[in-house]
């Protein structure tokens, strides 16, 4: 799209777009292209020798048990994180939307975890869930009777990284949910109340369906967040351990590429990640704006 009324200048528009094109070319297109080429090469760790092998790296990747396990872990981790933080965000937003007084203060008190770095959220929760010093760990041990030890048990470690990642995202979800709720016409709610619908029924039959675009958008954003931005949480809390039980895809790229120096495999993994995010982006643009709407 372009404006009807425009300026004309033979060189200025090029000059204006140049910085953007330059950074995108050097730090996006060239690396992406380079990654694509590298994903089809086998080379030794010192970079002295490389050979073109077509899709062998990808075949090796998808027949590697560890990689398939990492995919499973990532899916579980991101779904659990998204569902936890979205449902808490929705719950708190519903309550805050009912509150008559103090909306501004409530928002202020709920919004700031957005600004906490995932890595710092990891450190805070590492302390809270520490097997010998953590207070939340103590509560889990006492009230649930679980032998809580995220340093040794993979399942506990998974719960730990999910809690740290979900906590930080609650405020993001809250902001969107409350904005979505405030956009719902009051008259609809009032009409339903006149017809005798209880507050709970109004929530299920009016608020939630009308929030479906927000729900879908947040689902996409939360999954992207837990796929990529949780690197800091994993790095500070578990380093992918114990025994690879929290080794999500992004962390595995880093481990294989920078610690294991397996360039071919790491590049192939990057390409897989890029394809995933491209699909998600296309999905989002296709459906978020148009399809998910309340009809009928």
């Amino acid at each position, binding site marked *: 799209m372009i404006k009807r009324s425009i300026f004309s200048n033979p060189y200025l528009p090029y000059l204006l777009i140049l910085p953007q094109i330059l950074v995108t070319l050097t*730090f996006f297109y060239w690396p992406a292209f380079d990654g694509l080429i590298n994903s089809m090469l086998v080379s030794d760790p010192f970079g002295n020798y490389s050979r073109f092998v077509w899709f062998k790296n990808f075949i090796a990747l998808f027949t590697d048990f560890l990689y398939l396990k990492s995919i499973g872990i990532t899916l579980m981790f991101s779904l659990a994180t998204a569902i936890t933080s979205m449902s808490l965000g929705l719950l708190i937003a519903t309550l805050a939307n009912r509150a008559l007084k103090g909306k501004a203060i409530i928002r202020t008190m709920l919004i700031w975890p957005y600004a906490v770095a995932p890595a710092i959220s990891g450190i805070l929760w590492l302390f809270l869930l520490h097997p010998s010093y953590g207070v939340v760990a103590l509560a889990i041990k006492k009230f649930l009777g679980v032998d809580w030890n995220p340093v040794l048990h993979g399942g506990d470690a998974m719960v730990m990284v999910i809690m740290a990642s979900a906590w930080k995202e609650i405020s993001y979800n809250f902001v969107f949910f409350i904005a979505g709720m405030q956009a719902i016409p009051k008259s609809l709610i009032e009409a339903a109340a006149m017809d005798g619908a209880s507050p709970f029924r109004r929530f299920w039959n009016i608020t939630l369906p009308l929030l479906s675009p927000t729900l879908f958008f947040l689902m996409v954003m939360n999954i992207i967040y837990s796929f990529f931005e949780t690197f800091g949480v994993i790095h500070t809390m578990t380093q992918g351990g114990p025994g690879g039980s929290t080794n999500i895809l992004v962390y595995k790229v880093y481990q294989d590429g920078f610690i294991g120096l397996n360039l071919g495999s790491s590049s192939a993994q990057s390409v897989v990640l890029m394809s995933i995010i491209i699909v998600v982006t296309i999905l989002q643009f296709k459906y978020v704006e148009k399809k998910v709407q309340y009809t009928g």
Partner: protein
Amino acid sequence: MVEKTPILDTLTYVFLVLGILIVGFPIIYALIAASLPIEDVSKVPMPLIPGDYLLANFTTAWTKGNLGTQLINSFIMASGITIGKISVSLIGAFSIVYFDYRLRKIAFISVFCTLMLPVEVRILPTYEMAANLLGPIQSLVNVMHLNWLIDWFANYDIDISLNLSLLDTYPGLILPLVASATCTFLFRQFFLTIPEELCEAAKMDGASAMTFFRKILLPLSKTNIAALVVIEFVYGWNQYLWPLLITTNPKMMTAVIGLQNIIPQADDLPFWNVAMAGSLIVMLPPVLVVLLMQRWFVKGLVDPEK
């Protein structure tokens, strides 16, 4: 509310306060831990009455984690990314919306394609690129056997090796993260909603493109810029993977990365009070930015998607 539901209203407030406490709990707890001496913080459960070691723990965290240098690095990185992204995007969006030229569509599509690709998915090649900015030219030289050509031409044995490294530099920390299309896209969306008449009137009054940009477009974009400043500052400050890769020199490390050094490991004394104090210091700047600019931030976060 629509009808009177006193019980439900009371419950709403009770649960709301509970929710706020749960969300705030990690920070409140960290604050208490940061005010206790080591003997208290390693008790299970830790006493919930704040001690008076807050300042002492802050000082220890500051010196032990070398936070002074690192906070400055974080600040330079976050503001560099913020300013870089916003200025590059502003003029880029202006070019795409207000001019018609042959490569306009291609420019827009090529920028748009990078919209959601975070640096995390292309770490290795981007790292290689930053390690040697002239890498592409070097590989061109290699592919075209220019070395050989020059050997033959000059009858002289030269090995062309081009090297310009961004590792352990501020541009290295900043530039790769400036390459994102989100801001450009948002400014484009916003410019498209600006009435045509403004531009027509400006042109009629004889304003040049840059005058229109400076005198009309920039003031109109103020709120959007303010919102993006918050979002991008928080984004830049909280970066983890990229600074972790690109900095090896402790003097160039950012604060969020540096915190790793003050987390007690398995065989250390459990200095969690110091770790919590350090975490609180490092999270303070972005939290302050969000709280102080809350109004613009919420608007900027929510509105563009609508």
